[in-house]
C-alpha cells in the first residue's frame, strides 16, 4: 500500500515573528514562522492583517531574524532551522516569492545539541550574524555588499566554547564599533566531574561578550562575568552614537531577564536590578518564581522602551534613564495583560503583534492588580487552532451536500475551545430583507464608469422589473429609464455614463440625461439570451439568430448589420470582459440547442466542441490569474455549468483558439448558474447550485471553494460604502447582502469556549452528542479554591475581592503547586451548537479517559465510564487513587465509582464489558451491583497504556514507550495475551495506524501467517508458551508505511470526506494542522506520483541544489524520514509545489513524465479533490 500525504490545514501556531520592510517599500510587514511554514503578513492602515505569502519549509524553522544592510531600504530574513544550514531570504514583491540569496552549510541536519540553528543574533547595523546551538557551537557570518550591491556572506568564524550550555544569545548594540554579541552560558565541566554535587550547586551562569574584530577577522571572548543562576533571556539595549548629533542612542549593554527580576548589565559598567512585579492573587503559589518569556525593544526618535511579557501573560514596560552611556536607573511598570506570546513585534504605526504559540493565558502578583486593557486595543486576531488536543470527523449537520465536519478540542487552560471545522469559505451577512415576490435574477450597477460604488439594484421578476437605489437606505425608484413592466435579461453599465437593460422585447440604452434609445426586436421574435460587457452586447433571438451591438467612440450603440443565423436556439452564451485599453474582446462562447458547446470568435469564426454529459445551463468566460498555468498574464477560462450540477472548466488558448485542460467538478443537485463577480478586487466566478461555490485567485493560484451560506438562486457583485466588497444574492424571496472576509481559508471555524484544557472527547454511538473531559494541572478546582479562601479568611488575612473578580478568560487562573488539578466533564450538542453546564470533579480529582460501554450484563445498556485519578503527579506518574466512574445514560441515578491502584489512561468498550488500561496493566471489568468488577488482567506491559483499539477479540494496545502490542482475549480461559508487538520503540501512541510524539505517522500490519495461528488457538496456551523474540512478544508486526509530518498527531480517523469517495486517514496535529493520508488506487498513480516527487526533490530554487524546494535548505527526503526512513508515502505538499515552478521547469518535468503540464496539474488537483473535496 502506498500513501499520498496532503495537508488540509497547515499548522496555525506562531513560534517566531519578526517585523521588517521586506518588500523594500515603506510598508512594514511581519514574517512569521509557523513551525514548518514561513508566512509573510501585511497589516493595513487599520491593523487588519492579511497573509501575502505562505510557503512550506520542509524543515522546522527554529529561529528567524530580519536585518538590513547599512544605507539599504529593504530587509532580508535569516532563518535558523534544523537543516544544518543558514539561509538568507529575500521577498520578491513582483513575483510574490521568497528568493534564497544564500544557503551556507555548517553542520549536520536535525535539531541537534551542538549543531547551530537554535539561536540567531544579528548586529543591529546588519553587519554580522551569530548563529548558535544549544551547546558549544556558535558561528559568526559577516554580511556585506559587493561592488554590484549584492548581499554577500563570509565563511563562518567560530566562537565555540566546549562544555557550555547556551541559554540565549543576543547582539549588543555598539553603533559602528566592532559587532558584539552577548551569550548566557553555563559550563558543565566541573559538575560532570564532581561526585559530591557541590560543583553543580556552585555552577555559575556566565554572561559572556564576544567581539567580532572586523579588522582581524576573528571572534574574541571579550568579557565574561557571572550573573543570576536563573537567568533565561537577554534583551538588547540600544547604544552607539547617532551620526548627526554625537548623542548616544542609549547606554548599550543588555537586560538579563531572570526569575523574579531584571538586571541591566554592560561590560565594565555598574549593574542595575529591578524586581518583576507579581500579581497579588491570594491563591497564588508563593514559592513560584516568574520568568519573562518574550520581549521586544522599541526605538523611537531619541527614546526607547522595552515591553517584556511574563509567563502569565502580563506585559511590563521597562524604561532606562541614562546620561549618555551611564545608566541612572531602571524602571518597570505593569502595562497590560494579553495572552502569552512566543514573539512580540511593534510596528512603526503603533501596532503590537503577538505571535501566540498557543491560546493560553494564565494570571498577575505581589504588587499589582491585573486589569483590562488600557494601553492596548485589540485590532485584529488571526484565528488559530493551535493546539489541537483531540479531533473527530463526522457528518452531523444534515444540510444537503454537506461534507463531513471536523470537530476539534483546541487550546489550553481558560482559553480552550471546542471547534467545528467545515469545508468552505465564511460568508458574513450584512443585510437581509424580504421581497414582495420571488425574483429570478439580481444585478447591481454603477451609474458611471468611474463611480466607486454601485447605485442601483435591479431585480427581475417573472412579469416585471424592480429597481432599488442604494443610498442611506435601499428604496425603490421609478424614474431610472428602465422598463419595469417586463422581466430583465441583462443589465450593464456601458460606455462612460450610460446604462443598458436587455428585456425579452428589446434593448434600452439609458443615457446620462435619462434619454432612452430603444432597439426593438422584430415582431414575432423575442430575446432568449443576452450577454454584455462594457462595450459589447450580444443577444440571441428566438429565431436562432445572434444580433451583435458594439459601442462606438461617440457612445452610440450600433447594431452590426450581419445577423448570424445559428440553426438552433442558443441556450446560453457569455462574452469576455473587454481587455484593458481595447475596444472589444474577440471571444464569445455560446451553447446551442444540441449537446455540444460551440465556440465562436467575433472576428473570425472557429468552432470547437466539447463533449457534454448533460444539457448546459450556464456558461461563463473569465480572465483569471493562475500562476500554475501562466505566471504573468491572466488565463482565459471557460466554465460550463450543466443541468445535472456538474461544472466543466476549460482553458482557452488565445493563440490557437483551442480549449484544453478540461476539469470537472460536481457542485450540487441543481442546474448550475455562473456569474462573473469581483471579490476583493479580482475577477472571480460564482457558481450556484444546491451549494454556492466561488472560483477565485488567492496568492496567485486558483481556488474553488464552497461558500458556507444559504443556497442562492442568483447573485451579483455589490459595492456600497458600508459593504465595499460584497456580494448580493437572492434566496427564494429574500435578498441577502454578504461579503467574504477571508479568502484562502478553506476551513471555516465555529468555536465554543471551554473551562480547562480539553483532554479527550468521544461521540455517543447513536445520539448526536459529544462527551468531553477537561483537566488542568497546577490549577485549583473550585471547591479547593473556595476552601483555601475560607482558610485565609479564618486566619485573619484579608482577601482582595478585586483580585478574584477578573475573568479567567482574560487573566487566567492562579498557578497552583504541582499535583493540583481542576477538571470537569461536559456534554456538547454539536447540532444545536451548545453545551450542557459542565460537571466539576471535586477533591483534586482529574479526568483522563472516558468511554461509552454497552454492558452485556445489563442487556446492552449504555454506560458512560470516566477514568479519573486523585492527587495526580506527572513525573514520575503517581496518584493516591484512580477511580472509574460509571453512569448509566438510561437509568437515572445509577452510578458507581470503582477505585483503582493507578491512573486509568485508556478505556474502551470490549465485548459488552469494559477494557481499561490502568497504569501498566490491561484489565477487563464487568458491571457489578455496586462496583465494577475486575475480571481479567495482563501486567506484561513495560510502560503506561495510553491507547486502546479493537478488532473482534483482538486488542491493539499502544503504550507510552514501546509502540504497539497486539493482544487477544481468549474467553474460555479468561486470558488476555500479547501475541505480537512492534520492533521499534516509540512513544505515545494514538491509534493503530499510529502517530508518535516525534511527529511520525506509520502503518503496521501483522504478518499474514500470524492471524490463523492466533485465531485458531482456542485457549491461548500456544501463545502463552511460545518463545519470545527480541525480548517481546513471539510475533512482530511489519511496517507498511512511515512518514514524518513534523507535528505531533493527536487524533487519527479513517473517514470518507467526499460523498461516495474513498476512505482516507485524517489526522489532526498538535500545532493546529489537519492533514490526510490517501491510499493510492492504482499502481500507475503510485508510480506517477513517486516519479513526480523524485523530480520535485531535485528541483532547486535558483539552481541551489539539495533542499532546493525548501526555504530552509532542508533535504525533503531526510525531513520526511526524520527518525525512520520514509516508507511507501508520497509527499503531496512537495508535489503541489509543481504549480509554483517556472514554466520551463514545469515543461521539462512534465516531458520526463510523458505528460503535458496541464495533465500533471490536473492529476494533482484530482488527487486532492477526490480525497478531500478541498
Amino acid at each position, binding site marked *: 500500500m502506498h500513501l499520498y500525504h496532503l495537508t488540509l490545514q497547515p499548522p496555525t*501556531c506562531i*513560534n517566531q515573528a519578526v517585523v521588517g520592510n521586506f518588500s523594500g517599500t515603506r510598508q512594514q510587514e511581519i514574517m512569521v514562522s509557523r*513551525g514548518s511554514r514561513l508566512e509573510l503578513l501585511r497589516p493595513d492602515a487599520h491593523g487588519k492583517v492579511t497573509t501575502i505569502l505562505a510557503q512550506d519549509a520542509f524543515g*522546522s524553522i*527554529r529561529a528567524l531574524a530580519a536585518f538590513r544592510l547599512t544605507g539599504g531600504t529593504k530587509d532580508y530574513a535569516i532563518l535558523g532551522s*534544523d537543516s544544518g544550514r543558514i539561509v538568507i531570504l529575500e521577498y520578491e514583491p513582483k513575483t510574490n516569492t521568497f528568493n534564497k540569496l544564500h544557503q551556507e552549510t555548517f553542520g549536520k541536519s*536535525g*535539531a541537534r*545539541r*551542538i549543531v547551530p*540553528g537554535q539561536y540567531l543574533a544579528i548586529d543591529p547595523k546588519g553587519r554580522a550574524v551569530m548563529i548558535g546551538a*544549544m*551547546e*558549544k557551537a556558535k558561528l559568526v557570518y559577516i554580511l556585506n555588499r559587493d561592488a554590484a550591491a549584492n548581499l554577500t556572506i563570509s565563511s563562518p568564524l567560530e566562537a565555540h566554547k566546549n*562544555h557550555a550550555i547556551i*541559554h540565549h544569545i543576543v547582539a549588543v548594540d555598539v553603533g559602528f564599533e566592532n559587532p558584539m554579541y552577548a551569550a548566557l552560558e553555563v559550563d558543565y565541566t566541573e*559538575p*560532570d566531574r*564532581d*561526585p559530591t*554535587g557541590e560543583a*553543580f550547586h556552585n555552577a555559575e551562569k556566565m554572561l559572556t561578550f564576544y567581539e567580532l574584530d572586523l579588522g582581524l577577522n576573528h571572534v574574541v571572548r571579550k568579557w565574561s562575568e557571572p550573573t543570576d543562576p536563573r537567568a*533565561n533571556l537577554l534583551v538588547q539595549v540600544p547604544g552607539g552614537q547617532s551620526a548627526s548629533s554625537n548623542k548616544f542612542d542609549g547606554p548599550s549593554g543588555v537586560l538579563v531577564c531572570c526569575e523574579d527580576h531584571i538586571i541591566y548589565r554592560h561590560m565594565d559598567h555598574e549593574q542595575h536590578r529591578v524586581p518583576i512585579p507579581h500579581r497579588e492573587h491570594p491563591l497564588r503559589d508563593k514559592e513560584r518564581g516568574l*520568568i*519573562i*518569556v*518574550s520581549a521586544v525593544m522599541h526605538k523611537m526618535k531619541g527614546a526607547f522602551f522595552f515591553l517584556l511579557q511574563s*509567563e*502569565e501573560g502580563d506585559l511590563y514596560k521597562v524604561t532606562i534613564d541614562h546620561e549618555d552611556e551611564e545608566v541612572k536607573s531602571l524602571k518597570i511598570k505593569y502595562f497590560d495583560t494579553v495572552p*502569552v506570546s512566543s514573539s512580540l513585534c511593534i510596528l512603526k504605526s503603533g501596532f503590537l503583534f503577538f505571535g501566540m*504559540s*498557543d491560546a*493560553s493565558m*494564565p494570571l498577575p502578583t505581589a504588587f499589582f492588580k491585573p486589569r483590562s486593557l488600557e494601553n492596548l486595543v485589540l485590532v485584529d486576531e488571526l484565528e488559530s487552532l*493551535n*493546539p489541537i*488536543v483531540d479531533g473527530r470527523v463526522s457528518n452531523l449537520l444534515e444540510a444537503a451536500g454537506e461534507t463531513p465536519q471536523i470537530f476539534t478540542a483546541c487550546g489550553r487552560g481558560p482559553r480552550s475551545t471546542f471547534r467545528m471545522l467545515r469545508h468552505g469559505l465564511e460568508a458574513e451577512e450584512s443585510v437581509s430583507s424580504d421581497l414582495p415576490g420571488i425574483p429570478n435574477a439580481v444585478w447591481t450597477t454603477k451609474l458611471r464608469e468611474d463611480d466607486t460604488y454601485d447605485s442601483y439594484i435591479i431585480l427581475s421578476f417573472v412579469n416585471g422589473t424592480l429597481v432599488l437605489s442604494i443610498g442611506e437606505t435601499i428604496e425603490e425608484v421609478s424614474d431610472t429609464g428602465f422598463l419595469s413592466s417586463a422581466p430583465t435579461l441583462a443589465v450593464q453599465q456601458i460606455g462612460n455614463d450610460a446604462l443598458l437593460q436587455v428585456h425579452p422585447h428589446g434593448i434600452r440604452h439609458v443615457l446620462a440625461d435619462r434619454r432612452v434609445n430603444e432597439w426593438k426586436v422584430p415582431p414575432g421574435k423575442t430575446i432568449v439570451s443576452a450577454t454584455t460587457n462594457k462595450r459589447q452586447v450580444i443577444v440571441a433571438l428566438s429565431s436562432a439568430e445572434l444580433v451583435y451591438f458594439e459601442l462606438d467612440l461617440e457612445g452610440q450603440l450600433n447594431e452590426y448589420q450581419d445577423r448570424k443565423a445559428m440553426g438552433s436556439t442558443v441556450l446560453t452564451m457569455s462574452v469576455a470582459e473587454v481587455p484593458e485599453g481595447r475596444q472589444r474582446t474577440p471571444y464569445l462562447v455560446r451553447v446551442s440547442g444540441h449537446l455540444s458547446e460551440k465556440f465562436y470568435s467575433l472576428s473570425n469564426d472557429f468552432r470547437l466542441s466539447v463533449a457534454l454529459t448533460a444539457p448546459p445551463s450556464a456558461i461563463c468566460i473569465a480572465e483569471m490569474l493562475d500562476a500554475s498555468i501562466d505566471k504573468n498574464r491572466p488565463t482565459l477560462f471557460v466554465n460550463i455549468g450543466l443541468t445535472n450540477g456538474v461544472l466543466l472548466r476549460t482553458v482557452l488558448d488565445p493563440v490557437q483558439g483551442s480549449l484544453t485542460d478540461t476539469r470537472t467538478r460536481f457542485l450540487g443537485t441543481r442546474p448550475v448558474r455562473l456569474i462573473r463577480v469581483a471579490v476583493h478586487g479580482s475577477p472571480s466566478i460564482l457558481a450556484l447550485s444546491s451549494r454556492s461555490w466561488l472560483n477565485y485567485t488567492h496568492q496567485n493560484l486558483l481556488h474553488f471553494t464552497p461558500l458556507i451560506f444559504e443556497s442562492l438562486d442568483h447573485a451579483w457583485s455589490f459595492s456600497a460604502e458600508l459593504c465595499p466588497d460584497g456580494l448580493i444574492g437572492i434566496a427564494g424571496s429574500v435578498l441577502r447582502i454578504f461579503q467574504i472576509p477571508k479568502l484562502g481559508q478553506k476551513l471555516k471555524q465555529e468555536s465554543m469556549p471551554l473551562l480547562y484544557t*480539553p*483532554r479527550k472527547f468521544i461521540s455517543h454511538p447513536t445520539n448526536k452528542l459529544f462527551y468531553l473531559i477537561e483537566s488542568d*494541572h*497546577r490549577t485549583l478546582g473550585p471547591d479547593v479554591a473556595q476552601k483555601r479562601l475560607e482558610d485565609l479568611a479564618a486566619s485573619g488575612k484579608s482577601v482582595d475581592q478585586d483580585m478574584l473578580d477578573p475573568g479567567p478568560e482574560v487573566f487566567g487562573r492562579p498557578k497552583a503547586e504541582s499535583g493540583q488539578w481542576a477538571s470537569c466533564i461536559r456534554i456538547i450538542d454539536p447540532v444545536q451548537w451548545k453545551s450542557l453546564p459542565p460537571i466539576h470533579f471535586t477533591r483534586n480529582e482529574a479526568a483522563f479517559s472516558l468511554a461509552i460501554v454497552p454492558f452485556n450484563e445489563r442487556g446492552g445498556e449504555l454506560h458512560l465510564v470516566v477514568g479519573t485519578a486523585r492527587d495526580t503527579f*506527572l*513525573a514520575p*506518574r503517581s496518584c493516591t487513587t484512580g477511580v472509574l466512574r460509571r453512569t448509566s445514560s438510561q437509568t437515572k441515578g445509577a452510578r458507581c465509582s470503582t477505585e483503582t491502584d493507578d*491512573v486509568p489512561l*485508556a478505556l474502551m468498550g470490549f465485548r459488552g464489558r469494559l477494557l481499561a488500561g490502568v497504569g501498566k496493566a490491561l484489565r477487563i471489568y464487568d458491571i457489578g451491583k455496586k462496583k465494577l468488577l475486575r475480571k481479567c488482567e495482563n501486567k506484561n506491559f513495560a510502560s*503506561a497504556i*495510553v*491507547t486502546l483499539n479493537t478488532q473482534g477479540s483482538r486488542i491493539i494496545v499502544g503504550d*507510552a*514507550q514501546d509502540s504497539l502490542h497486539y493482544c487477544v482475549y481468549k474467553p474460555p480461559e479468561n486470558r488476555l495475551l500479547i501475541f505480537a508487538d512492534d520492533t521499534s*520503540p516509540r512513544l*505515545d*501512541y494514538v491509534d493503530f495506524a499510529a502517530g508518535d*510524539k*516525534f511527529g511520525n505517522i506509520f502503518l503496521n500490519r501483522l504478518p499474514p501467517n500470524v492471524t490463523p495461528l492466533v485465531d485458531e488457538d482456542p485457549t491461548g496456551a500456544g501463545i502463552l508458551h511460545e518463545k519470545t523474540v527480541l525480548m517481546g512478544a513471539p510475533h512482530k508486526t511489519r511496517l507498511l508505511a512511515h512518514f514524518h509530518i*513534523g507535528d*505531533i498527531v493527536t487524533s487519527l480517523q479513517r473517514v470518507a470526506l467526499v460523498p461516495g469517495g474513498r476512505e482516507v486517514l485524517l489526522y489532526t496535529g*498538535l*500545532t493546529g494542522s489537519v492533514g490526510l493520508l490517501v491510499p493510492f488506487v492504482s499502481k500507475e498513480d503510485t508510480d506517477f506520483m513517486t516519479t513526480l516527487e523524485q523530480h520535485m526533490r531535485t528541483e532547486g530554487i535558483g539552481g541551489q541544489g539539495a533542499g532546493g524546494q525548501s526555504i530552509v535548505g532542508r533535504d525533503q527526503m531526510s525531513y520526511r524520514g526524520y527518525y525512520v526512513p520514509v516508507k511507501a508515502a508520497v509527499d503531496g505538499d512537495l508535489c503541489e509545489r509543481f504549480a509554483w515552478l517556472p514554466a520551463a521547469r514545469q515543461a521539462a518535468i512534465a516531458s520526463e513524465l510523458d505528460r503535458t503540464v496541464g495533465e500533471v496539474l490536473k492529476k494533482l488537483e484530482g488527487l486532492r479533490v477526490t480525497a478531500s473535496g478541498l
Partner: protein
Amino acid sequence: MSTAISGIRLTCVKRPWCNNMSSELRFTATTQTEHLHARYTGTGHADMTKYDWLTHQHRDTCASIVGHFPLSLYLAIGDNESIGRVKFEMTERMLQPCGPPPEKDDD
C-alpha cells in the same frame, strides 16, 4: 491527550555513537578519535561509563525538546506551563540531567 500524564519523560532520541564515523576511521585512525570526540560532543567511546552515556542521552533529549517546537508545546500543555518555561527548565536541566556523577573507583 491522556498521554500528557506520562508528561516529562526522557527518552533515547538518537544514538550518538552512530555518527557518521566511517568504518575505516573507527578501526585505523585511533589517533583521530580523540580529535573527533572533542569535535562531536556526545560521541561515545569504548570506555564510556553508564553515567556518561546516560547524561549525553538526556542532554540530547532536552536539546531535542527545545529544538522541536511541537515537543515543547506538548510538554507545556501536559504540565500546564508556558512554552517559555518548559524551554527554560529543559535548558537548565541540561547542566546535570542525571544527578552528580558516581564516585570514581580507584582500581
